[in-house]
């Protein structure tokens, strides 16, 4: 099972600032291990951010995103207390979903 | 092989140890004992590397400021170990030299035996195109152009890379030839990087 994400959502002015930290190797499939064997690709492909059940960001992700990815977004029209849910799915089918409330 | 673990003569070592006040001597002795207990050989890095050779012993005991008399004597001793190329040629290929200057690998426990770079850019500014250079050592940009391209300077560059301690006993720079990290051809290529009038260093 994938490790939990860390989500921070705060109102800054008229927009909610959402920052997400994810625990993921984001392996490109291009690297070799110590024995010279290719390390298989293992990376997040999809990222969804939803506020109060409505998708605000639908992201597609490739292998260029760094290990343990960090994403930041801004959403207008949100308010303190609104529920933020972030979900990802990787190329092996592994997935994770976490939530927080906007502060 | 190379000149590691050269013991000081018994008398000299005893005198050196007696030189320090007992507490400082105790701490140093404890430090050395502790390291020998805590470390283990890994890859090409054997435990013998924890032993000081004579030069290291003198630098360690003098805070890298050895008394003049000793420094001069030992610098002379170091100079006697330099092997100049048998063919008399000190200059190789500056392009190969640039690659050696860039490469920082070699001699660590994760390196294979025999493969070493010079790691020169870690500490020195050299070619003008490389902006990622260290400042532990002096800039070598325009080395030949400012010092002259003559055979004396070629020899100076060769011997300095071979054994930096000849001109400054407790220099921070490794003794690349002395330790066997760089071979004759590599040192020649580095000399060319610094001394060849067509090297980017001298443009």
């Amino acid at each position, binding site marked *: 099972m994938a490790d939990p994400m860390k989500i921070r959502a705060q109102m800054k002015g008229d927009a909610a600032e959402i920052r997400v930290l994810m625990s993921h190797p984001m392996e490109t499939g291009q690297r070799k291990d110590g024995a010279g064997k290719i390390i298989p690709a293992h990376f997040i492909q999809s990222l969804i951010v939803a506020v109060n059940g409505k*998708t605000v960001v639908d992201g597609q992700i490739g292998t260029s995103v760094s290990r343990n990815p960090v994403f930041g977004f801004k*959403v207008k029209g949100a308010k303190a207390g609104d529920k933020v849910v972030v979900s990802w799915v990787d190329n092996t089918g592994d997935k994770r979903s976490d939530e927080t409330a906007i502060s | 092989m190379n000149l590691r673990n050269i013991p000081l003569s018994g008398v000299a070592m005893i005198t050196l140890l007696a030189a320090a006040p007992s507490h400082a001597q105790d701490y140093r002795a404890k430090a050395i004992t502790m390291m020998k207990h805590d470390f283990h050989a890994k890859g090409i890095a054997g435990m013998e590397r924890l032993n000081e050779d004579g030069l290291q012993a003198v630098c360690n005991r003098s805070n890298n400021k050895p008394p003049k008399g000793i420094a001069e004597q030992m610098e002379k001793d170091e100079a006697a170990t330099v092997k100049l190329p048998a063919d008399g040629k000190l200059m190789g290929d500056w392009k190969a030299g640039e690659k050696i200057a*860039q490469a920082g690998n070699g001699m660590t426990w994760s390196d294979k035996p025999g493969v070493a770079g010079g790691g020169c850019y870690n500490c020195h500014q050299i070619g003008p195109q490389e902006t990622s250079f260290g400042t532990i050592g002096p800039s070598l940009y325009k080395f030949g152009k400012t010092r002259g391209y003559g055979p004396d300077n070629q020899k100076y560059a060769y011997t300095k890379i071979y054994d930096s301690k000849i001109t400054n006993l407790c220099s921070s720079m490794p003794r690349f030839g002395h330790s066997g990290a760089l071979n004759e051809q590599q040192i020649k290529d580095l000399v060319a990087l610094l001394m060849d009038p067509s090297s980017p260093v001298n443009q």
Partner: protein
Amino acid sequence: MDMLRRTILKGASAGGVLTVALAAGMLKPGQVLAAEWNKSAFDAKDLDGALKAIGAGVAAESKDIVVKAPDIAENGAVVPIDVASNIPNTSELSILVVKNPFPLSTTFHFSNGAVPEAAVRLKLAQTSVVKVIAKADGKFYTAQKEVKVTVGGCGG
């Protein structure tokens, strides 16, 4: 496979809400959650191929796209990149690292109040231009910035 993953994602995200959304017919192609992972775009090995695969073969230079990235990165493993579009009705931002083996790094689709703005951290295999594509009202716009990747020392 991709369809299956998508289904899993729908189940995993936002609990029952998305199921409701699905039932309400919100999840049509071109809308939220619509796009399959664009394999041909992410697998493209050069800029042109990637641009074509995201439909941005022709994109106009725009000063209304902001690309914030370091001028120099000591190593390319984690380069912070912030992008934003001030072009009205921007619905999508893609970030491409031109010299990477697979240039397309991310595509974000914004809706329901999301500002067309994203902060990401990318791997740069070498010194490269980072190119941003914004999609607004069906048209494509672009801006770029070069990030120099240098050789590091011991690495902190």
